[in-house]
Every structure is written in C-alpha cells, then in structure tokens.
C-alpha cells in the first residue's frame, strides 16, 4: 500500500489551511483530550512512582526503599526468580514459536485465518480465567493429573505452583503472542532463496543455517525481548494462581504483598513504588531494544519486498 507513507511525506495541507482559528490551534486541537487523558495519566503515574520510590512514608528524600528492595533477601530472590522465569519463558517461545510461526505462515489462507483466530483467543485468555484453567488441568486434582494417574498409574512430575509450573502457565499465553508477532516476518524469507540453495546443492539445514536463520534473527530477537517484557510484568496470573503468600516469589507478587497486606514495614508503599520503577526499567530497556530491532526489521522487509 503506497498510501501508507504518503500522508507523512506531505507536511502542510493545501486548501484546508484557510481557517478562522490560528493554524496551530487547528493543528493540535483534536489531540488535546487524548493527551490530557492518556499522557497525563501514564506519564504522571510513572513520574509519581519514581518520586515515591525515593521518599519515606512521610515524604522527604531517601534511598531507603531501594536499599530495602535490593538488600532484603526475600525481595532480591523475587527479582532473580522473575528474571529467570521471564528469560526461560522467552527462550522457550523463541525455540518452539519460531518453527510454529513458520508453519502457520506456510498454511493456505483459510488455515492461516483459523490459526490466527485461535492464537488470538489464547493470547487473550489471560488473567484469572487462565489461572483457573491451569488449576483445573494441573492442580492437585487437575484433569491431566487424574488422567495420568488413571491411565499410567503414576503421579505427574510437575507441581503447578513451582517455578516450572509457572513456566508452563506463562508459556501457554505468551507463545501465541510470540507466534502472532513473528507471523508477518515470515514473508521476509523468499522462496527463491530456497531454490538458489538447492541449485547450489545445499541441504535444508544449510538453508536455515546460512540464509533463513540470519534473515529471521532480528525478528526472533525482537520476539524474545517482547516476550520477556510481557512475562516480567504479569501480575494477575501469578497472583490468582499463587495467592498472597506463595512459595515462589516474583517481583509482581512482592508488589502485591506490599499493596494488599501489611507486610513490608512502614515504608511498604515506597518499596512497592521502587519495585514498580524496577519493572518499568526492565520494560523500558526491553522496549527500547525492540524499537531498535524493529528499525532493522523494517529495513530488511523493505529490502525483501
């Protein structure tokens, strides 16, 4: 669609410039409610959290919340577990999701539509309902557990409320998002290249190692980064799954503890703010990386088209 770029190229309107109002009012007026609503809320909240993470329960300036967040073992281990969990989930997504995205993209149009609809359902199927579904599947009297006990006669070696249980749960809703993200990228690998590899008597392995892999690598990396960011900020799923005093601690669970129960001392709200800022930093770094990769991806797609 060439129309996609053209409006941006033409900066100034022609005939619509004749207005009673000053030009800048006409230029910017429609965005005022949007900025007032979204900008003030999002940016204001972010700034307020940063300020709050450097203050005590009665105001003032202090780094105590940060010292508590990194100094207390429970918080520190929660941070480490969160990072590990998100990294494992993102890696599983990259390893399994990339071939899946490739196969979905290779389907005929109708199959692709169906697959996308299904992926949409699953990626929207988060939060409380997902936790419930996981408990009915893998919980202590879950369907799969009973099935394995009844048919195989052995206990299922996976505890839903452990680290690996969380990996399974997170992967369940992150993998479809990853595949949806990678789908458009699959067009960057041209069928002609496979022909070229075959002409040069290369194998399928050669093709993926020397052509397909390198072309797709920034997309895979970008998908990894987004899956990581998406996982680390999850609150509703682990909170619904694990409750308020779980054996597996995560940043978001600690944050919930500080907010909803009286743990964490007198400055618990400031500690919550510090954890919030920490999550913002993770997500911010991830998104910046993603934007940089996206620029490279677009160039690559442009070259391929």
């Amino acid at each position: 669609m060439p129309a996609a770029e053209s409006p941006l190229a033409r900066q100034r309107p022609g005939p619509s410039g004749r207005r009673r109002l000053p030009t800048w009012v006409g230029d910017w007026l429609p965005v005022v409610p949007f900025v007032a609503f979204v900008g003030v809320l999002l940016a204001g909240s972010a700034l307020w959290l940063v300020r709050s993470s450097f203050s005590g329960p009665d105001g003032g300036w202090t780094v105590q919340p940060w010292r508590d967040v990194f100094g207390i073992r429970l918080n520190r281990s929660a941070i480490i577990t969160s990072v590990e969990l998100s990294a494992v989930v993102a890696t599983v997504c990259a390893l399994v999701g990339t071939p899946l995205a490739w196969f979905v993209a290779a389907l005929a149009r109708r199959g692709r539509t169906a697959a996308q609809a299904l992926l949409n359902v699953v990626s929207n199927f988060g939060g409380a309902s997902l936790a419930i579904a996981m408990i009915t599947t893998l919980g202590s009297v879950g369907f799969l557990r009973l099935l394995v006990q009844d048919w195989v006669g052995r206990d299922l070696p996976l505890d839903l409320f452990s680290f690996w249980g969380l990996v399974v749960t997170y992967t369940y809703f992150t993998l479809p998002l990853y595949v949806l993200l990678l789908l458009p990228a699959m067009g960057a690998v041209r069928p002609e290249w496979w022909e070229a590899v075959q002409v040069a008597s290369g194998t399928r392995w050669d093709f993926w190692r020397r052509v397909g892999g390198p072309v797709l690598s920034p997309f895979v990396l970008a998908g990894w980064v987004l899956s990581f960011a998406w996982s680390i900020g999850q609150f509703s799923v682990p909170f619904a799954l694990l409750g308020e005093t779980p054996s597996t601690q995560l940043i978001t669970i600690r944050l919930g503890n500080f907010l909803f129960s009286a743990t964490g001392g007198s400055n618990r709200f400031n500690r919550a703010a510090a954890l919030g800022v920490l999550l913002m930093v993770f997500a911010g770094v991830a998104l910046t990386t993603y934007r940089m990769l996206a620029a490279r991806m677009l160039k690559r797609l442009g070259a391929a088209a």
Partner: protein
Amino acid sequence: MTADSVLVRPAERVERRSLPRPAGRWLLFAAWGALIALPMVATVLYSLATVWRNKAFPDGYTLRWWADTLREPRVVDALVRSVALAVATVAIVATITLPPLYWAYVRNPRLRTIMQVSALLPFALPFVVLAYGMKNLAQSTGATRPLEASFLLLLAGHVALSFPFFLWPVDSALAAAGVRQLHEAAETAGAGPVTTLFRVVLPNIRTGLLTGSMLCFATSFGEYSIAKVITGSSFETLPVWQVAALADTRGNPNGVAVMAVFTFLVMFAVSTVIAVAGRGEVASIVPGATGPALRRR
C-alpha cells in the same frame, strides 16, 4: 480441467515454488493444538461435572453449576459491571483516539508520532504498576482525592491501558484506506472535517474499527490488576470475583470453572468476529510492529 493444469500439474508447481515443509509439521500442530485445548477441556469438564473422584473423567455430568452460577446475584452483578466498564472503555477510547488520528493523516502528521509513542507506554508500565501509580497520583492532590478508589479512576485506567489495542488496527486501516485522498475528495465536494469523518472515513475503515473495538473490549473485560488495586471489592468486576472465589476454599469451585468457560467463550466470540472481519489479513495487533510495512508480504 483446463489445458494449463494438464501441462503443469498443480502439485508439481506448488512443490517447486514452496520452501521446505517437513512432514512433521502436522505432528507439531497436533501437539500444540492438544496443549492449547487441554486446559479449556479440563475447565469445561469441571464446569459440567457432578462428582469427580480420582478418575480420568467425571462420574457424571450436569448443567446445574451453569444454572446456579448464572443466577447468583453476586456473579451477575460482577458480569454486568465488567461489560459496562468494557463498553464505556471502548466508547471513550474511540472518542479520544479517532479524531486526532484522522487529523494526523489529513493535517498534522506529528500527532501520529505522539500517539504511537504513547501507545508504547502501557507496555513500559506493567498494569499493576500503572494502577498503583494512578491511585497515588489521585491521592496527591486534595481535589482528586475523592477519586482515589472510584469507578471513574478505574475507567480512566482501563482507557489508558487498552487504547493501543484500538489504535493499531485503526491506524493500519486509515493508512490502507488512503484517507488523505478521501479527505481531499470530500473537501472538494464541500464537506467539512466532521462530515468527512463520519460520512466518508468511518465507512471506509469499518474493519479496523471493529477489530480495534473488539480487542479493546477484550482487554478491558479480562483485566484484573487495575480493578483490584483501585476499587478492590467496592466495584467487583468479573475477574476480581473470579480471583476472590478461587481463593475462598468454602466457595463454589464449579462456579469458578463456569465463569472461566464463560470468559473463554467471550474471547472466542471476539476473535471470531475479528477473523471474519479481517478475512485472514495478518493483523498488526502488537506494539510497534508498524503495521503497513509489515503487511507487505
């Protein structure tokens, strides 16, 4: 049989043009499909089971849990609240997002940059963090303090986090429809900007609007953290009820399963509408994937 297909058999043509497709892909699809379906099947079974004792399948099936749960006032109230909240969210998002986005295409392209950058912010702010920040922000001034735990702040939070899901599909649709040319044509015919927006532009981006509204609705409908942090049990939405009921050991576990299946059906309906409306287009519904360029495949 046309002459062409006799000369070059279709199967051969496909084989030659296409990239390697290992036969194992259907196995992979099947395994993945089973994994996706398993929790859903389990939840459906649980919502229909009479008694389920240490067997692979329940002893019997009943619709009693469905009838009971959908009649329980607390559940019905929560459901009504969630739907109302999601509808209000979509309405506000459309009202504040659509005019500036349209204006960005016909008058001031810089608006689009501002909106796209804002659309990344909800992803840099995990929802629970955003909710907590908003609550704190409201507490900080005397004028806004009454809002601290109000429905209005909850609604504002839902708008702030779900507008990107509306923005991306609508932005792609506007780009694809060639809105600038439409606008110029309408202006030549003597239409003002508001008339053009409603009579010319909107009918041309119906698919994008539908997709955006549906995604926005789904996001708001399933969102837990904002409601939990801001209003808590004073405005119990469906997800808040679900988590509370899940934690309540004396509660009604089958009812919890019923509402999980219900939520799943809502999401399924939403996705079906999107798929039918989009007719298999690869929709760019993910952050910063910069729709139009990626659609060229």
